[in-house]
């Protein structure tokens, strides 16, 4: 019997209706799908029939991690949560949320590769996992509490080392725009209400075990050191954002913000980040300060330190100490988050006093973070905020709300950019208090339907950046031209793919990017200068395919797609090359299941195709090209009227995008007319049974 490393070996199954708890063998049932989203899609395919709704007891929610979670591999702290998506409109389909923090490692140390939850408890419960002891516990005292109090309460019960993933009032109240959060600030969007529908308040995990590594220790350590040496800063930006003595290149847009004179000013004592030569791997954690990146250089004085996931040296969350958060608003001075979570509060306001990097903006961020991360509200990658701005300033809110409710909000504060407005709005969203809060909490698609607003109205708005099916774009043409657009057509929520944007934003000069692109995708023509796009070619299609497959691979292995793939590096002596085989090397050494890069990419293709099959099955149509892989009108628009392929615009050309989709389907070996995988495409990746089942239902082209 082969003993694999990496995997813990068990998938935990919990039926909340019956209270039954049991396990399955990971290797026996799921090895071919790795973990994470792979296990999630497999469970939904096998066990959740088409027509199931997100809040039905028959829906399942799968917390999946991969064989690399809990190991020493950098950036392995991700948990993928797969379920039928409440904000996916006009019908629910499969989608995934992802959270960092310590949950993934805790789950592995407790002995599990995934938790599959089904049914519905007859009262509020929380799931206690203390190594092999698993119990469904009463959560009635926790129900109605925020995420933070719940986390503290459960930690006090099972141990301070536990990781607790909890929902807030938003999830309890079945607000589709809700999250689950672990480790204070690490959220997975969109799944809170699915947990709430099962009366599941939280999962608390305490693991005292470890992860077995199949490889020889010295071989594993050598690989980890290689991986560390290739790391840049957050989003794998590989050059600093200002000239540094060691650096040949720099980019003002880089997240590598460390420099002489930039200090974590609120640390005790304050800490100088320094020049951070890339060879100093013990200083990787000083490179990134996302709060300063997004909110400006004044933030350095409020920075305590970086924070983040297990075994990740990047520390992309910034911990801030902002006295005004307590003095003016009554919240804790200390808060932490990253990216969209950090900007949650500021993003609601069209205008804000002293600008997007001023003091008020910072205060709005602190207020927003504290409220959203405790109530458990999701922003849908900023779409919630963009929707509010559009609804208000285009007059929809005044039109759709009754006078009494409209007057119950302090719109003068909203127009002035007063952060106290958030203290009115966000609790109401979490509690479905009123028409506006209820509508916003549905997510864009269902909100538009409820208010009788045409989706086309949103799709043509250049500033709303809405894409389809209730969700916005996520790194589209503004980052990578046609490649970005293709990627955004493929999922049932925002794409959450960073494989392509991590590359195009890495900060290296175009000629270096093109040289690397030629090595990875076959031609320097795979990438263009941002804003100087050229017509579609097959190398861009290759890049799109690679980006998507690597995203699925990361989400199944437990590697962070906000960091990988690592195909560029900060090392001049390597010609700024990273290593396109890192994933396969890590997988092979950790598990002992030796796979080449190509072989592992084929596993990723299997997982991606299973997502496609699920979508086709549950949509009940094979016409993916016209009914699913759609592109909103704003992609083909430029505010200054510039033509596609002229310099200074991201505007795409509709005919060229038709060619792009043709080339992408060809690259995937899918039917170009329907955009559906062919029978041979499924069989090629080992999904013959899926092909057979789809054939019976007319799901093959």
């Amino acid at each position, binding site marked *: 019997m082969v003993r694999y490393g990496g995997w813990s070996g068990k998938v935990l199954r919990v039926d909340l209706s019956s209270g039954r708890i049991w396990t399955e063998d990971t290797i026996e049932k799921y090895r071919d799908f790795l973990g994470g989203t792979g296990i999630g899609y497999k469970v939904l395919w096998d066990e959740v029939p088409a027509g199931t709704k997100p809040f039905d007891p028959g829906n399942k929610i799968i917390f999946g991690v991969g064989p690399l979670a809990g190991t020493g591999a950098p950036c392995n702290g991700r948990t993928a949560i797969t379920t039928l998506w409440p904000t996916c409109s006009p019908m629910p389909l499969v989608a995934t949320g992802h959270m960092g923090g310590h949950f993934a490692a805790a789950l592995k140390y407790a002995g599990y590769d995934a938790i599959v939850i089904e049914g519905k408890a007859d009262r509020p419960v929380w799931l206690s996992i203390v190594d092999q002891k698993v119990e469904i516990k009463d959560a009635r005292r926790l129900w109605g509490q925020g995420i933070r109090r719940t986390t503290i309460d459960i930690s006090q019960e099972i141990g301070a080392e536990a990781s607790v993933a909890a929902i807030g009032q938003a999830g309890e109240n079945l607000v589709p725009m809700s999250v689950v959060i672990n480790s204070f600030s690490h959220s997975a969007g969109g799944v809170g209400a699915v947990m709430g529908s099962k009366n599941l308040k939280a999962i608390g995990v305490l693991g005292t075990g470890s992860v077995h590594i199949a490889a020889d220790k010295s071989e594993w350590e050598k690989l980890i050191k290689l991986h560390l040496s290739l790391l840049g800063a957050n989003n794998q930006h590989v050059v600093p954002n200002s000239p540094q003595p060691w650096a040949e290149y720099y980019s003002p847009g880089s997240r590598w913000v460390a420099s002489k004179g930039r200090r974590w000013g609120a640390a005790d004592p304050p800490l100088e980040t320094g020049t951070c030569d890339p060879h100093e791997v013990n200083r990787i954690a000083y490179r990134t300060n996302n709060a300063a990146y997004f909110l400006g250089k004044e933030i350095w004085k409020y920075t305590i330190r970086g924070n983040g996931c297990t075994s990740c040296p990047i520390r992309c969350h910034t911990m801030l100490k902002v006295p005004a958060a307590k003095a003016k608003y009554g919240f804790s001075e200390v808060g932490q988050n990253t990216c969209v979570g950090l900007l949650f509060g500021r993003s609601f306001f069209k205008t804000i006093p002293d600008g997007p990097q001023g003091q008020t903006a910072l205060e709005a961020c602190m207020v927003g973070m504290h409220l959203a991360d405790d109530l458990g509200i999701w922003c849908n990658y900023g779409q919630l905020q963009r929707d509010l701005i559009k609804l208000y300033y285009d007059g929809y809110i005044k039109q759709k709300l009754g006078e009494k409710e409209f007057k119950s909000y302090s719109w003068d504060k909203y127009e002035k950019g007063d952060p106290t407005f958030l203290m009115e709005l966000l609790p109401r969203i979490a509690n479905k208090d009123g028409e506006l809060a209820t509508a916003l909490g549905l997510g864009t698609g269902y909100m538009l339907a409820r208010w009788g607003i045409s989706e086309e109205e949103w799709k043509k708005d250049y500033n709303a950046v809405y894409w389809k099916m209730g969700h916005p774009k996520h790194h589209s043409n503004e980052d990578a031209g046609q490649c970005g657009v293709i990627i955004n057509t493929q999922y049932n929520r925002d794409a959450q793919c960073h494989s392509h944007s991590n590359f195009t934003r890495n900060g290296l000069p175009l000629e270096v990017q093109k040289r690397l692109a030629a090595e990875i995708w076959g031609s320097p023509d795979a990438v263009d200068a941002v804003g100087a796009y050229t017509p579609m070619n097959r190398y861009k299609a290759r890049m799109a395919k690679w980006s998507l497959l690597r995203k699925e691979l990361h989400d199944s292995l437990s590697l962070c797609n906000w960091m990988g793939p690592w195909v560029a590096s900060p090392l001049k002596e390597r010609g700024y090359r990273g290593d396109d085989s890192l994933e396969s090397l890590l997988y092979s050494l950790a598990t002992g299941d030796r796979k080449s890069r190509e072989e592992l990419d084929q596993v990723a293709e299997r997982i991606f195709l299973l997502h496609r099959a699920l979508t086709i099955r549950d949509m009940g149509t094979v016409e993916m090209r016209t009914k699913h892989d759609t592109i909103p009108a704003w992609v083909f628009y430029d505010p200054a009227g510039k033509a596609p392929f002229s310099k*200074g*615009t991201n505007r795409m050309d509709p005919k060229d995008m038709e060619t792009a989709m043709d080339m992408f389907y060809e690259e995937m070996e899918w039917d170009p007319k329907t955009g559906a995988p062919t029978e041979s495409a499924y069989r090629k990746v080992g999904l013959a049974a899926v092909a057979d089942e789809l054939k019976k239902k007319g799901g093959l082209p």
Partner: protein
Amino acid sequence: MEELSGEEKKPWAPVAEMVRERSKEGKIVSQKELLKELAAQGSKAHRAETAEAELFRKAFEENEDLKELRDQDEEAWLYSSKWMSEAYAKALVRRRGDPLLLMAETIRENSLKYPRPIPLHLFQDLPFEMTEEEIESCLGKMKNLEGYEDIAQTTTSIGTVFLYSKAHLDPDHAAMLAEWLDVGQFNNP
């Protein structure tokens, strides 16, 4: 006859170490300065009858990380590629010369190589360390000086001024890239 020490046999040996120390601190050092320092230390290298040119020639020969750049007055400046990139050293050398040329060449290189415009405030930080007044004065002079007609400005929606060279970057492209670098990337996290 007095026995020669290691340093006397290789009087150029301290040169490499001194250059490396300076490079580690983010600084370049001129040949003149090196010689003065060697003299002040009472270095036998200075007392030995090694010609200056020979001193540096041997130092370069034996230390492949030692590099030299010349400023506009043809003065030689040294750095160690172990601790400093050529790009950074070049910026430091330019800094010692005409600030107009420093700004223009930096702007042109960025517009050509990346390609991108660069924010005005970049010149206030290391390695440039120009004051606001110096920067404004240079920009003012460039408007009227022959040879600088290609240097142009664009301002983003939040008021940040970016500089670019029209010789290498189309104005619409420069404006779009400036907006992307200053606003767009942060609105697309």
